[in-house]
């Protein structure tokens, strides 16, 4: 009986670190859990703890970043990613979160922003009115910043960056700048992206009306040559900031090169918010 009790104790002790990670890690099936453990023993958090992730998680005072990274590792492992993919991905996350050089500079327009003015995180997104990915990501970010888990933590700024190969990208961007001038930027952006597959330059007037703008005023204002200059300046700024695709995000001035999935972004932005406190 005694050897059996000892064996049981050792087995429970061995299982303890795995069970005390994050709910996502605890839910992993056995082969995936083994891979996650292997990664925990190889990966070092880029901040808050000098040991491996495994040691950081076992420390008496666990740092929040170690938990976040462990959860991120388990997310990727659960999605079937292999060890080298996860390691490369974590490098990208580190590059996005650590100050590695000069921060990007922007001529931000408050009319194209949302979220708490005193939020600790400034998120700048260069986006094209005709980019399918932007049409999914921007409304998600808007919802999170205005009523979701990022409320009070993030101020979101939109920077128009028309992609030349997208037909209608300039007209769409001019429509967005016009909406900003008329004080209806976000409702119009949501309308524009909500009707992504029905896009037509003339239909924009109807969408402007649908979100409460005077259609005639909108149609007249969007043809002003000065707006084109504003758009050119935004595009030039993007090129100076090394924008190579849309959407491109900057978190407190740092180029964000990690995953653009909204759940990952929520985690990364929450991490940045905690760091700024």
């Amino acid at each position, binding site marked *: 009986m005694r050897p059996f009790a000892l064996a049981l104790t050792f087995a429970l002790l061995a299982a303890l670190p795995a069970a005390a990670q994050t709910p996502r890690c605890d839910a992993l099936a056995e082969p995936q859990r083994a891979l996650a453990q292997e990664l925990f023993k190889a990966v070092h958090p880029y901040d808050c703890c000098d040991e491996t992730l495994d040691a950081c998680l076992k420390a008496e005072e666990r740092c929040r970043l170690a938990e976040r990274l462990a959860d991120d590792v388990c997310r990727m492992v659960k999605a*079937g990613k292999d060890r080298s993919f996860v390691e490369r991905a974590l490098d990208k996350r580190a590059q996005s979160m650590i100050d590695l050089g000069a921060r990007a500079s922007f001529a931000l327009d408050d009319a194209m922003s949302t979220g708490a003015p005193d939020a600790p995180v400034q998120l700048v997104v260069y986006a*094209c009115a005709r*980019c*399918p*990915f*932007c049409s*999914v990501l921007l409304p998600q970010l808007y919802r999170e910043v205005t009523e979701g888990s990022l409320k009070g933590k993030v101020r979101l700024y939109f920077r128009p*960056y*028309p*992609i*030349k*190969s*997208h037909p209608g990208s*300039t007209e769409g961007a001019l429509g967005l700048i016009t909406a900003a001038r008329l004080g209806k930027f976000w409702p119009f952006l949501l309308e524009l992206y909500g009707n992504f597959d029905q896009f037509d330059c003339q239909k924009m007037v109807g969408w402007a009306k649908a979100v409460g703008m005077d259609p005639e005023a909108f149609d007249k204002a969007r043809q002003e040559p000065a707006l*084109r200059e504003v*758009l*050119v300046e935004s*595009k*030039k700024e993007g*090129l*100076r900031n090394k*924008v*190579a*695709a*849309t*959407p*491109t995000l900057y978190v407190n001035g740092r180029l964000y090169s990690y995953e*653009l999935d909204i759940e990952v972004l929520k985690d990364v932005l929450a991490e940045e918010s905690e760091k700024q406190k």
Partner: protein
Amino acid sequence: MPMKLLENPTVKATVRDAVLIVVGCAAFGLAFNGLRPSGGIPVVQREEYDLLVPCPDISAEVDPLEPTDPRLGAERTLVIDAREAEAFAAWHHASARNAVYDFLDPLPEETVREIARSGAAMVAVYGDGADPDTGRELAKEIASKGIRNVYFVRGGAPALRERSTAR
């Protein structure tokens, strides 16, 4: 009619062989997939594929050319000035032709065709020399259309003009 066709021994043999090949390949594929260490790729995809990817801007990269490079004066080099028409009229490189770069609108197809038809061994583009440099941006756009040996002149028109004044 199909049944009648199957009575033809050649057609019958062809169909039989095709069925055998398809069944054999499918069996081999399933067996190979089953041997994968992760348990194999699911035969039926339950989750939606993540098809969304960022939209790339013009991705071609171009090398710089110094304003002193002798190739700028070579016979088979096509020199393009990317600046506005007024700036081009005020001063331009001796052999340059004007093709204004627009940050918003794509390069007209006709201009691309003219460059392709020019028979030039090299295309050197200069712009305003600012940041971002219109010359570099136009050179990238031309290169992205499949035209080879496209360069931009470092420092743009101001650097070229300074050099021509110095001479």
